[in-house]
């Protein structure tokens, strides 16, 4: 890794335009330019039209999805989640972790500190793994905001349906793995 290349902005930036958004602006511009050069102006216009048309269809969905997310957050505050999951184990713990994970909104910066807190407050490792798996495959917030509008209802519902058993499976596998690793110091 290079240590002394050019300095980025000192702060992670305001929420409206952060590093990854800027990167994506550049990617969109580059891809647009490439389409214009490789496929010609007609293809460029049709792609632009597709994107804008989809945007108009999607905006109401995004507004509703964000509101749903805000209601879910108000429903299940973080302290309640820690209380539910701390110290629980067994199938009941895995199922609760699955429910809690799918309701946890926000990106990795929200989920991992919560898992760490759970672990420290005595939650079993399989419960932590179930929680993280559920947050990543069943996370309602991300499914509603990104997946439903972009990939459609049929795809999203199918994926959520086949993903339902995954967090519990991951928890059970963790439990089995830990049986094998028991010789090692914790």
């Amino acid at each position, binding site marked *: 890794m290079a240590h002394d290349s050019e300095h980025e902005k000192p702060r992670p930036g305001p929420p409206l335009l952060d590093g990854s*958004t800027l990167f994506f602006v550049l990617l*969109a511009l580059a891809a647009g330019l490439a389409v214009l050069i490789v496929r010609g102006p007609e293809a460029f216009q049709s792609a632009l039209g597709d994107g804008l048309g989809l945007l108009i269809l999607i905006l109401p969905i995004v507004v509703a999805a964000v509101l749903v997310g805000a209601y879910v957050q108000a429903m299940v505050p973080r302290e309640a989640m820690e209380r539910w999951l701390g110290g629980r184990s067994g199938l009941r713990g895995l199922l609760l972790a699955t429910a809690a994970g799918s309701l946890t909104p926000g*990106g990795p910066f929200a989920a991992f500190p919560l898992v760490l807190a759970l672990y420290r407050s005595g939650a079993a490792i399989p419960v932590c793994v179930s929680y993280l798996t559920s947050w990543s495959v069943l996370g309602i917030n991300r499914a509603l905001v990104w997946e439903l509008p972009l990939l459609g209802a049929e795809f999203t519902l199918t994926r959520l349906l086949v993903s339902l058993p995954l967090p519990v499976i991951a928890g059970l596998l963790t439990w089995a793995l830990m049986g094998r690793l028991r010789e090692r110091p914790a």
Partner: protein
Amino acid sequence: MISAYLTLGILLLALMGWRHRQAEPGHREIAVRGWRQMRPLLVRIPIALLAGSFLAMLIPRELVAGLLGEASGMQGILIATVLGAIMPGGPMITFPIALALIGAGTGMAQMVTLITAWSVLALHRVIAFELPALGWRLTGIRLLACLILAPLAGILTLLLAGLRG
């Protein structure tokens, strides 16, 4: 698209109705919180959509359809697992690319696998967030236990499609 509107509308109404019987926080406060979360999305989603529709024009269709199409079966599911695991970035990058890949002929089971692999394995997220927060032991156990989940999701999708006929 209509089913997406309906799903969300019903969900939102149910939540609002359920919330109506509770005290704090009220609808207004919840709406304010929602608006705060929505502002960055109003910038990100249009950009992501544009990038996605441009990328869709550039992706080599025959290659994608051959590697990840409905007919690619188990092999496509395994390729999708690897692709999903190494796909960097958050939803803003992944979903437009997924949209482009579907447009280029990726099958349903293969796409479910790819999204699942990206969700549970996400090597960029492991390095950036998980290892620093949880350490090697917890992260290692989780990754081992989660290795089979993405192909499993793909196989379940195939079975589901089989059931539907």
